[in-house]
Each structure stands twice: as structure tokens, then as C-alpha cells.
């Protein structure tokens, strides 16, 4: 039984079918890629998985539970973490605060009455935990920095860290490479691979940067015009002549 399953997801916007009867499945601890050119419907599918959009047909289930109608926060609390294509951080808060908030909210210790009697203040152990994760993501010592002071690459890492602090069983990443240059992308990929290996969460990497996906996913789905055109082990997909010709083109050729 797969951990996260999307079964026959269809989503239409006025006039176009952005996602058309798509099935994907992801096992615990697995690294899966979802690729496709711009406008293929990746973000739309992603938002259906997370509850930001309600699919017109199909269902989403997590750990055997049907979550198609659950609101975003409930899915987050079940253990689905995410990052954003356009970075969404809590401006005005420090880097550590991002992790602290996420930890606090996930651990469900946020009752008002506890706050009122002083039990809600950040504890040294929580702060330590946040700093340890920052350290392992290469953001050591940046806990007190205002979030605005970070580069885009670092901001992406903070998003990852924020998602990880909710102790997710699967993390969905929406185009983590967008806006980053090659070197930054490589660095991000290395960090991601390492932290995934350490913590063993499942990972769905949505990307149009094929190289990033090729570098560390086990399986890959290919989406085009809202339809799933192929899927399988990443190396096979990358070799698939149809995929290469139509969607990946020179990218893969150049990379190899």
C-alpha cells in the first residue's frame, strides 16, 4: 500500500483541462520526480494533492485514508509537508522562528490556556532542535537572521527546514530549482539528498529541471498537457526516446 496516492485526478479551469485523469503513487521513504514542461499541470496537480485546489474528479489518499476533502491544515497535520515554487516565508520573523512555529504547531502544544499560564514560551530544547536542523542544512548560525536577509537558495532551504520541522512523512517540493543558478541548484540537490537519506521521509519533487530530477529520484512521472505520458524508474524514463524527443530535448542530451 503506497503512502500517498492520487487516483484519477482531473482538474479543469475555464476552458482547459489542466490535469487529466492522473494516477500517481508514492511509497514511504521513496524519492519520486514529477516532470513536464511549463504549463503541463504540475503545480495544479500538486495543489490538488495538498488541498489548495479541489479536484473535479478523482481522489487523494494518504496512508490509506481518503483525504480528498480535507482542508490544507489537516493534511499538514497528517504529515504532508511542502515547499513553494514562489518562496512563501513569514516576513518579519527570524530564520529560527520559522522552524519554531512549524514545530510548535505540529506538536499540537498550542492551546491558548497553556500560553496564558506561561507554558507556551519557546523552550531551550526546542530552540536546540531548530538550530540542529539549521546546522545540518548548512544554515548553522543563521537562526537569528531576519528572513529577508537570506539569499533565494537559503530561503528555499528554510522552506525545506520549516516543512521538516512538522515531522512530515512525505515532503512535496514545487520546483525548488526555479530562480537558482546551476551551482546553487547542485548545492541544493546535494543537501536535499543528504537530509532525505538521514531522515528517510518520502519526497515528491516537481520540476522542469530534468537534471535535478535525474540526479536523485528513483522513479519519475512525466506530465504533458495535463496527461501522464509515461512513468517508471528514472533512468528508463530519461532514456525513453519519446520523452527525450518531445519534452526533454537537448537538456538530457547536453547533460549526458
Amino acid at each position, binding site marked *: 500500500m503506497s503512502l500517498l496516492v492520487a487516483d484519477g485526478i482531473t482538474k479543469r479551469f475555464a476552458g482547459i483541462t489542466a490535469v487529466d485523469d492522473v494516477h500517481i503513487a508514492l511509497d514511504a521513504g521513496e524519492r519520486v520526480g514529477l516532470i513536464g514542461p511549463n504549463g503541463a499541470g504540475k503545480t495544479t496537480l500538486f495543489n490538488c494533492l495538498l488541498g489548495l485546489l479541489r479536484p473535479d474528479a478523482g481522489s487523494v489518499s494518504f496512508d490509506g485514508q481518503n483525504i480528498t476533502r480535507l482542508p*490544507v491544515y489537516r493534511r499538514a497535520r497528517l504529515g504532508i509537508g511542502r515547499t513553494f515554487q514562489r518562496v*512563501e516565508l513569514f516576513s*518579519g520573523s527570524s530564520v529560527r522562528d520559522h522552524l519554531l512555529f512549524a514545530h510548535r504547531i505540529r506538536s499540537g502544544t498550542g492551546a491558548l490556556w497553556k500560553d496564558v499560564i506561561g507554558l507556551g514560551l519557546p523552550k531551550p530544547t526546542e530552540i536546540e532542535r531548530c538550530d540542529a536542523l539549521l546546522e545540518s542544512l548548512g544554515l548553522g548560525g543563521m537562526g537569528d537572521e531576519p528572513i529577508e536577509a537570506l539569499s533565494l537558495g537559503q530561503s528555499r532551504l528554510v522552506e525545506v527546514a520549516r516543512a521538516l520541522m512538522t515531522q512530515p512523512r512525505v515532503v512535496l517540493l514545487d520546483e525548488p530549482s526555479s530562480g537558482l543558478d546551476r551551482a546553487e541548484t547542485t548545492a541544493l540537490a546535494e543537501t536535499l539528498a543528504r537530509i532525505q537519506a538521514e531522515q528517510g521521509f518520502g519526497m515528491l519533487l516537481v520540476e522542469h529541471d530534468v537534471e535535478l530530477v535525474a540526479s536523485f529520484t528513483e522513479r519519475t512521472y512525466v506530465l504533458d498537457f495535463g496527461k501522464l505520458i509515461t512513468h517508471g524508474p528514472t533512468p528508463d524514463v530519461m532514456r525513453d526516446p519519446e520523452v527525450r524527443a518531445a519534452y526533454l530535448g537537448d537538456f538530457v542530451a547536453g547533460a549526458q
Partner: protein
Amino acid sequence: MTASVLAAGVLEETIRAFFQGLPIGAGFALVAMSFVLTYKTSGVFNLAFGAQAFISAATYFELHVRRDWPIWSAVLVAVVLVAPVLGLLLERLIFRHVHAASAVAKLVISLGLLVALPELFKLIVDYDREQPFGAVGIIPDGTTVYRLFGRYPVTRDEIAAFVIVIAAALALAALFRYTRLGLRIRAVVQSPRMTELNGVNADWVSSGSWILSSFFAGLAGVLLVPTTSSLGTVLVPQGYFPIVIAALAAAALGRLVNLPAALFGGLVLGVITTEMRTHLPRDNVILNELRGSALPYVMLFAIIVFWPAIRRQIAGADPLLGVSPPPPALAATSRSRGMTIYTRIMALAFFTAVGIWTFGYANNFWISRITHSVIFSIIFLSIVVFTGLGGQIALCQVTFAAIGAFGAMQFAQRWDVSVIVGMLAGAAIAAAVGAVLSIPVMRLGGIWLAIATLAFALFFHDVLVKYGWVGGSLFHGRGVPRPQLFGVDFSSHKNFLILCIAILVLVGVLVILIRESSTGMALRALRGSETAAESIGVISWRSRVIVFSVSAAIAAIGGGLLAMEEKQVSYEANYDPQAGLFWLVIVVVLGARTVEGGIQAGVAFVIFPELILDRWLGLHGAWRYVLFGFAAISFARHPEGLLEHGKRRSQALMQRAFGRRQPAVAAAVAGPEVDAASETGDGP
């Protein structure tokens, strides 16, 4: 047979109400079009139109009624000269310079002006030298009655109002169609971005639309005098408030962006008003209230909450409507240890000195003033919670304070329980009301939330307070005793002050705890990015309910204490919704983000008019409203609050002086102007 006679009677009444409603609606429509014009061209949600309408009407009154100028010259000065010039001045001196500020910041400025402008006007012409009785319309023999179709009575005033407004709307349409300025304004109204790209001179468009809208407001001001009963014959600024609210409702029908919809909406609401007045049953108390001035508030609330166009607009997340992005971290978080200790010692010394003076030397008058400051500090902490922590603006804090006051009163009067218990019960009721209110307005944000809560406050003020179970009966009066607690009698001034200080400390600590704990974290996350907050499991509706309830409860506690201090519920003096506008502005201007800010606002609110204005400067009490208006203007430049701004600045200076480098602070202070613009800039 009888049925058909009855039906004929009802039909006749309906038609009569229709003809009476049109002129009233025409006035609403004028103000509604003004709203649309300025909102779309400069992003300002200008509640001060009420003030502008009043100023024209009062100028006309001053010239024609008091000084016997002929009608035409008085109209010329009041409407053709004063109104446009006022609009131009507002645009040139104020709104042009806050272009980049958030919609909420602009709303705060307009609230300031709404209060300040009429007071300034009154001071200048010494308007209150006698009761402004006997206001008349601008039509000679306006009360002459004609019968339309031989049956339906309408006065000359009413016909004139309707005709003038339709003529004005047609003239506006012609202006848009045939003149360069009109074309430009229309272009900006339709698509601000587009026109910026095309290099249309935005300055002229902005000035032009302010001149036009102010002219319309002025015209509405004089036209409405004889047609709406809410203005009565005593011409005071408050009379224009319900009209502005009705106009707001009309403008909201067109999502604040559609001029024809505003015109049409105004007329329709005018007709609805008179139809309701005619047909609603008189024996049902609640429905009967809708006959009177409560109607605009109910309509406004209902339109904001239920009108699909607005829901869609909010879902579409117009950047103008978003809350302002959270400002940078507080100065206190980035100051050095030495500085912190120094600040604390200074504060301690100050409070000790004030304490010794108060308890050793002050007379009862000053003790009472200090008690008032402490109580208002408590009330203002509710604004710190809602605005400082929640990042939103609510204009119904007065209502919650009133609920606390009436709670204390009712429980003490009816069940003879301790007034403290009554106050706490009032706080619980306020929290519940806040929670219930938060549900329909939940999805709203920014100015829509502010307006919906204002409508609620006005509804409470106009309708609910009149019920015996809320506002008390004439028979019992509104007396409230001082409390007894654990055998201690708090009826003496000093003892009661001690009690208030203790409660202030408690509430202050509570607010800090909430801010620094899980609830505060969730709120900061939501403020930063709602989507991201939900993606880590923040339950946004729950956080909003909590903010509403906690802030309502705090306001109610303050309200209860205020009633005990004054030994009665002085509802009109303390809890009027317009006083609430004042509260909000003073807190956000001084600094809504810290407990200190709330306390300083409380002290400023009470002591400033008394001590500085009256005793030291010997100025008329109305000057405080004027100064308040100016203070509101500063908000756009310093959305973090004047105190926080001053603190950052002095902190940077001192740290530079002591040779300590604190990059974060230095950066924050280096460019306060740039800083303010980016803090208030519209969110993504």
C-alpha cells in the same frame, strides 16, 4: 372588494415611498461615486467624505442662514469653491505623499481626517457659538409640496436633489467621454497598471479625481440636509455618518470600482430605505429598528459579508485589500544588553517617581486621571492584540468595552453579584460575541474587515443599546458600584487605582505571553503568509476566532473598570463608535505592536488633552481632534508606530555613540522613509 382596496393602498404607499426614496438615494449615490473615484485613482478608502460633506453643508449654513447671504452666492462658495479646494488640498498635502502606503494605512489617515476636519472647521468659523438650528436646503421655498400624477407628494427640495444628482452623473459621464482629464481618469479607474505603463500623468488624474469627488461630497452635503431625517435640523458632523455608511454600502455593491453600479446602488438603497420605513411592521421591535437609522449599518454589513462580487474580489486577492505585510522585528529584540538594562532602569525610576507622587501628593482629580489612563491602557491592549498581533483592523473595540461596562452594571443591578464578577461575565459575553462575529467576517481582511466591524459597532450603538437587557432601563439608571473583593474595599480612589494597576499588569503579561507563545507564533505565521502557515498546520479560522475573542474580552474588562471608576456607564461619552475610531488611530499611531505602545496610548489619550492642551497651552478641547488628525497622517510614514520609530532612531544614535555596531538596527534606521514605504507597500 376590501382586499383589492387594501392592495391598492399598499401599492400607493409603495409608490409614494419610491418617490421619496429616490432623492435620498441620489445623495447616497453622489457620495458612493466619490468613494469609487478616489478609491480607484489613489487607493484611498476615504471615510472623510462625511467630514467633507459636513463642511460644505456647514459653510452654506453659516453663510446663508447665519449671515443672510443670498442662496446662490452661498452655494457658490460652499459647493463650487470650498469643496473642490478642500479635495485638492487633501490630495496635494496628504494623499499624494502616501501613495505607496497600504490600503489600511490610508484608511487610518481618512479616519483621522473624518474626526479632525469638522473640528478644525468649527474652530475656524467658531461654528459652535450657538446651536446650529434651522438648516435649510438650497432651493428657494424647498418645502413646497407638489403631487406627482396628482397623488404622490414630493417637495421641491426632493425633486431638485434628484434632478441635480442625475444631472451631475450625466455631466460626469460627459466629462469621461469628451474631456482629456475624464478619459484619463476613466482609464485609471479601469486599469491603473495599464495607464501607468502608458505614461499617463498620474498626478493630474489623482488631483482631478479628488477635486471631482470632493465636489460631489459637498453637493451631497447640501442636498441631503432637507431630505434625510438623520440630519435633522441641527447641522452636526455626526449626522453625516449614517449617510456615509449607506453610500459605502452602495459603493460596495460595485466592489468600490464600478461608477454606474455606485450610482444605481445609491438610488436603490435610498428606495429600500423608504420602502422599509413604510412597510416594516411597527410591532416587532427589531424590524422596527430597521425603519430608522440602523438600516444602513445592516445593509452595509450584509453587503460586505454576502455580496458575491465582494467575496470573489477577496478570493481574487486584490493586492490593495491585503493587510500590510508585517513590519520588521521590534527594536527591543535587537538592542544590546547594556541598552536593555539602561532602558529598564529608566522605566523603573520613572514609574517609581510617578507612583510616589500619585499616592503621596496627587489630589483626587489627578488620581482619577491616572486611573483613567490605566483603564484606557487596558482597553488599548485589546487593540494591541487585534492589530499588533493579528495584523488586522477592527473598529468595534468600543462595542466590546461597552459590553463589559453593561455586563458589570447589569449583573450588579439585577442579581446583586459582585461587580467584578459582573465585569468578568461581561468579558465572557464579549468574547462570545467576538467569536460569533468573527465567523461571517473571517474571510474578509484589510479594509473590508474594518468596515464590517464598524457596521457592527454602529448597529450595536443604534439598536442594541436601546434594549433594557443591554443598556439598562431608565428606571434603574446606569449606576455601577465600586467593587469589594476578598474583604478589601476598593471604593476609595487610591484603592481602586491599585486594583486597576494590578489588572493592567495582569493583562499586559497575558498579552506578552500570548505574543511569545504558540498563539502568537500562529498569528505571525498567518500574517506572513496564510498559505504557508496552513501548509504547516496552522488553523487559520481558529486563530482568528481566538484573536477576536481575546481582544474582545480585554476590551470588556477595561470597559467594566471604566464604568466602576466613573460609578456609572457613561455610554455616550465613552463608548460611541466614533470614539472607537479615535482609539484605534491613537494606538496604531503610537505603536500597536507592543504592550508599552498600548500603555503609552492610554496615557496620551487621557493626560494629553487635559495636561498639555488645556493647562499648558490653554487651547480649546477641540484641538485634540485636530492634532489627532495630524497624528493619523504620520501613520503612513511610520506604520510601526511613532514610539517604535523614535526608539529605533534613538537606539541607533546611542549605539553609534557608544561605538557598538548593530548592523540590523543601523540598517533599519538608516533610511526611515524608504523603510516605511516598503513596510506599508502592498503585499504580493
